[in-house]
C-alpha cells in the first residue's frame, strides 16, 4: 500500500465504520516479564518475538490499527536512559516487527509519545529542540514504512504542536494525535492547563487529521470528555482510555475494570460520534476483542455525517 493510498483509505474507511486501534503495549510487555525500569522500546531489539506476538494478538482480537513499540523512542526520551544512540535501530526494528504482524487491509501506526522534558520556562528545552526530536523519530518511522502516525499522551499543547510540526516536516501521512486530559472541577485540562476545545482547534490548524484523548481517564470518565470533544471539532475523533482507574494491591498497580464494561463505555463513545477507539494502560487483547464483538451488527453512524 503506498502512503497516499493508505491516507485515503484509513480516513475514508472511518467514514463507513468505526475503526479499532490496539490496546496497551507496556501492560502486555510487563506480563511477558519486562523488568520494571527497562525501557520497553529495548525489547524491539532483545525480544522481538514477544513484541511480534503482542501485535498479532491485537490483530487477532480485531484491531484495525496496531501501534509500533516506539512510544518512548524519541532522541530526548531515550537519552534519559542513555540509549539515544540506538534510536535509529529501535524505531526501524519496531516498524519491521509491526509490519510482519500486519496483514493486508490493516494498518501500522508509528507511535510517538512525549519527550518527558518540559518546555521553557518551566523546563529547560526549547520548542525547536522538541520539534527536532519529533521530526527525527518521525523520519525513521516513515522511511521504515508505516501507514500513519499516532502521537499520544501529550500533556502540553505546545509539545503536541511541536510533534505535529515535526512530523509534518517529513511526512504527509495521516496524523492522529491524542492529548491526555485530567478531570478538574471546571472541566477537562492537561497537566499544563490546556483546555479541550482550544487544544483541538490548534491541533487541527497545525495539521492533525484525527484528534482525541488517551490515558489518565478510565473508559467511564472518558465518555463525558468524548462528548466535549465532539462539540469542539469537526475532525474525526479517537479515544484510548485506560482500563478504569489503577488500584494498588500489595504494592502492584492493577486495573480492575473488566473488558465487557470497558467495551460498553467505548460503544457509548462511538455512538456519540467517535470514529476510532482503542485502549491505553491496563487494556489487553481481551478488551479489543470485546469492543469488536459488541460492534458486530451495530448500525454505525460515523462522525460528521
Amino acid at each position, binding site marked *: 500500500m503506498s502512503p497516499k493510498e493508505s491516507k485515503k483509505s484509513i480516513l475514508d474507511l472511518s467514514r463507513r465504520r468505526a475503526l479499532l486501534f490496539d490496546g496497551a503495549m507496556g501492560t502486555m510487555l510487563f506480563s511477558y516479564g519486562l523488568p*520494571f525500569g527497562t525501557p520497553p522500546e529495548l525489547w524491539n531489539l532483545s525480544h522481538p518475538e514477544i513484541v511480534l506476538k503482542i501485535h498479532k494478538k491485537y490483530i487477532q482480537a480485531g484491531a484495525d490499527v496496531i501501534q509500533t513499540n516506539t512510544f518512548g523512542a524519541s532522541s530526548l526520551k531515550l537519552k534519559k536512559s542513555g540509549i539515544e544512540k540506538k534510536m535509529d535501530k529501535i524505531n526501524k526494528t519496531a516498524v519491521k516487527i509491526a509490519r510482519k504482524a500486519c496483514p493486508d487491509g490493516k494498518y501500522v501506526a508509528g507511535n510517538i509519545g512525549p519527550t518527558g522534558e518540559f518546555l521553557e520556562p518551566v523546563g529547560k528545552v526549547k520548542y525547536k529542540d522538541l520539534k527536532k526530536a519529533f521530526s527525527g523519530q518521525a523520519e525513521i518511522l516513515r522511511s521504515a514504512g508505516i501507514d500513519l502516525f499516532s502521537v499520544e499522551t501529550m500533556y502540553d499543547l505546545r509539545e503536541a504542536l511541536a510533534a505535529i510540526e515535526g512530523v509534518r516536516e517529513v511526512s504527509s501521512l495521516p496524523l492522529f494525535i491524542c492529548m491526555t486530559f485530567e478531570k478538574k*472541577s471546571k472541566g477537562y485540562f492537561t497537566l*499544563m492547563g490546556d483546555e479541550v476545545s482550544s487544544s483541538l482547534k490548534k491541533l487541527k490548524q497545525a495539521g492533525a487529521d484525527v484528534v482525541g484523548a488517551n490515558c489518565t481517564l478510565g473508559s467511564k470518565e472518558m465518555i463525558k470528555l468524548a462528548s466535549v470533544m465532539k462539540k469542539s471539532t469537526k475532525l474525526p475523533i479517537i479515544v484510548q482510555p485506560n482500563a478504569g482507574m489503577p488500584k*494498588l494491591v500489595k*504494592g502492584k*498497580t492493577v486495573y480492575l475494570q473488566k473488558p465487557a464494561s470497558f467495551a460498553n463505555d467505548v460503544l457509548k463513545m462511538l455512538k456519540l460520534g467517535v470514529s476510532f477507539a482503542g485502549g491505553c494502560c491496563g487494556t489487553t487483547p481481551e478488551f479489543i476483542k470485546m469492543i469488536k464483538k459488541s460492534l458486530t451488527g451495530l448500525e454505525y453512524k460515523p462522525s460528521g455525517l
Partner: protein
Amino acid sequence: MERKLKNFLEECYNAVLEGDKQKAEKLATEAVKSGYDSYLVIEKGLVQGIKKLGEKWEQGSCFLPELVLGAEAVKAGISILQEPILKSKAGRKNLPRVIIGTIEGDIHDIGKTLVATMLSANGFEVIDLGVDVKSDNFVKMAKKYEPRFLCLSSLLTTTMQNEIRVIEGLKKANLRKKLKVMVGGAPASLSWAKEIGADLYAENAISAVKVAQREIGHESKRK
C-alpha cells in the same frame, strides 16, 4: 503592622502569584537593604503566595506552569533573604533538612522535583539526590546530612519495592529513629507507607509540604 511593610509583603505575595522570579529577587534584595525581618518577608510574603497557588492548584484553577514558576520565584527570593540568616549558626539550625530522591530503577523526575521545589519554597533545606538513587546512597547521605525527612519517590510499581531496602538500610545504620521517611508517587498510598514501615505518605507536592509541616508541629509539641 505599618502600612509600608504591609504593602511590601503584598508585593512579594503578588510576585509569587505572577511567577515573576526577577521581581521576587528584586524585592528580596530591597528587603535585606531596608533591614526588614527576613523570616517575616518569607513567611508573610513569599510563602503566602505559594500557599495561595497551592490552593488554586488543588481546586483546579491553576496548573503546573503557575505552580512551578511561583515556586521558582519563592526559591529565588528565599535564597537572597536567607543570606543574613545563614550567617548565624542558629539560623542554619532552624531550617528543617530534607533528603529526597527517586528510588533505584526508576528515572521519573517530574513529581520528585516538584516536591523538592515546593518543600524548598516553603522553607525547607532540600538535598535532591536525583533519580535512580541506590538504596545504599540514600542511607549514606542520611548518615552524612542527618535530615529530618527522607522522601522516597516512585512511579513504577516493582521498583517501589526498593523502598523497603532503604528502610532496612536505615535500621541497620541505626538511623531509622532519627528521621521520618515519607513516600510518594503515583502508585504509593497510605497503606503502602504502612506496609513498608514508612512514617508518612503524601499524595502530591502540596500535601508533602503540609505533611512535613504538620510533623514538625507535632515534634515541637512533644519537645
